[in-house]
């Protein structure tokens, strides 16, 4: 048995089955409060949990294994570099705590800083590093232990968009070379699509969907993921119906004709979106519709206005709602 086999149960918060192979990157997405970070904390041994976690056939919670004995690499959104230690000493901290002599630990740490292209920052204190530099040091610190399990908690969330993009590409390269198991918590669809081999969608402490990034993005099963990837998703009986906001027709009266999918609603919000205007229409469902600026003016589509939305059958994708199909 190689890889991660976890049945994580934190009473009242989380009940999740998760397995992952060596070299695999699993992204965990879901709305705030879905239990993403609780899942990471449970895998790291930072919160008590029932259930079972085993890595490469070795049980981690029977009896519970201390976080220090699990060999996990933790990367936090706010980096948490030791403020009183240099970048080099931060990265060398893990090896030194495992009994590696100082000189050897620092040599290894220096090698990691080299790999992240931040050789020159070795002597700097964290307070003098930029967000992107500090997060590189933090990831190097986690990888320097050669962890069997790398846990990343929203590693790009505190960074500027441009910095995050650069680091995301860099991280993808390091994760390719990493033969441990990676679990990445994120709220950004781009992270899941670019870094992950598999995406786990959490909702209210349960797994709502598991699949490849393309499957999850193309056929979302939760409102949250639908919004992340910019799709409308409705549940109709035992089926999901998904369609892009760009295929929605907006009219002021009930449409007649071939459109089988039609909903009345009230415009709640209107904002520019690329070259068009994106409307959020609330009614029986919350739906997104993209309209041209011209029709926005013509139909006076402002918040508070009652409208009808319709979609042609040929423009929607339908798929079964039962999990596992």
């Amino acid at each position: 048995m190689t890889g991660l086999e976890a049945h994580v149960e934190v009473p009242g918060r989380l009940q999740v089955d998760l397995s992952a192979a060596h070299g695999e990157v699993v992204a965990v997405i879901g709305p705030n409060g879905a239990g993403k970070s609780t899942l990471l904390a449970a895998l790291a041994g930072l919160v008590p949990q029932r259930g079972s976690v085993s890595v490469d056939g070795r049980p981690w919670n029977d009896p519970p294994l201390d976080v220090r004995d699990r060999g996990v690499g933790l990367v936090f959104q706010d980096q948490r570099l030791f403020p009183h230690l240099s970048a080099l000493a931060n990265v060398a901290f893990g090896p030194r705590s495992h009994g590696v002599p100082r000189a050897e630990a620092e040599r290894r740490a220096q090698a990691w800083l080299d790999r992240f292209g931040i050789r020159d920052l070795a002597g700097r204190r964290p307070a003098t590093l930029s967000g992107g530099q500090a997060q590189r040091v933090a990831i190097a610190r986690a990888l320097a232990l050669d962890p069997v399990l790398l846990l990343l908690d929203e590693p790009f969330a505190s960074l500027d968009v441009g910095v995050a993009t650069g680091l995301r590409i860099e991280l993808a390269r390091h994760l390719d070379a990493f033969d441990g198991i990676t679990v990445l918590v994120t709220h950004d669809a781009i992270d899941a699509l670019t870094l992950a081999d598999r995406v786990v969608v959490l909702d209210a402490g349960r797994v709502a969907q598991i699949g490849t990034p393309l499957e999850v993005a193309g056929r979302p099963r939760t409102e949250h993921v639908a919004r992340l990837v910019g799709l409308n998703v409705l549940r109709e009986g035992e089926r999901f119906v998904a369609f892009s906001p760009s295929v929605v027709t907006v009219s002021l009266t009930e449409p007649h004709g071939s459109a089988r999918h039609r909903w009345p609603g009230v415009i709640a919000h209107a904002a520019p979106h690329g070259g068009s205007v994106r409307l959020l229409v609330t009614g029986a469902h919350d739906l997104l519709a993209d309209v041209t600026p011209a029709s926005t003016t013509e139909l006076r589509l402002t918040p508070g206005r009652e409208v009808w939305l319709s979609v042609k059958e040929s423009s929607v994708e339908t798929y079964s709602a039962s999990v596992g199909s």
Partner: protein
Amino acid sequence: MTIEPLLPDSRTRERRSDSAAGARLGRPPLLLVIPAVLASALLVVPLVSLVLDTPWSGLRSQLASSSVRQALWLTLLVSLCTVAACVVLGTPLAWLLGRVMFPGRALLRALVLVPLVLPPVVAGVALITALGRTGLVGRWLYEWWGVTIPYTTVAVVISHTFVALPFYVLSVQGALESVGDRFDVVAAGLGADRWTTFRRVTMPLALPGVLAGAALAWARSLGEFGATITFAGNYPGTTQTMPSKIYTALQSDPGAARILSMILLVLSIGVLVGLRSRWLART
């Protein structure tokens, strides 16, 4: 979303002050200004009058007096021993109270603070009942090893440590709590055991609290009088520290008492200012 909700977070909050705010917010009300001026006067006037009233011409002869030198030396020795005892005993206690969950922790936290509000004379009496020759613990010390603690220099250090320790523990505990355990968690994640974490992470981050606590303990020791004279007496050379010497001198030679008070004042302010400027340079 982060792991944060599960871990107490106490990043030091940024303090912002706007120097122009005073001008914008209008004139400070007299209801606040007058008491503030009175408070300042209460604190400053006695010190100024002490300086004015000190017969400086006697300084040289006082400093030459062997009993003054003895008291001065003893005060320095005892205050340094007290700081050392606070650091060695108080740091682990503060860590235990701030980082480890155990039954009775809340009670112990409260008990540790009692000496803060205890009148020093009562502290002295309490120490006699514990460590006196017939005391709860002192009895065994005497019977087994023939050791008597009261009225010795050791008794002075013990009584000073008794009154200074709560200040030290409170300061370090506050520093530990403001740092929080977020970095302890990181260290554990990197494989550090608790001792390594304490040594390499917790203590360095709490260092400002340790230094402030040490300064408080030192200042408290320098001025200790009530518990000392009760538990250790007032014997020149062994238990007579500067405050006891000043008290004795005041009854026979008020001028000498003023000079000795000035010496103590200059000494304590000098050392505190010196330490403070060093810390400010560090940070």
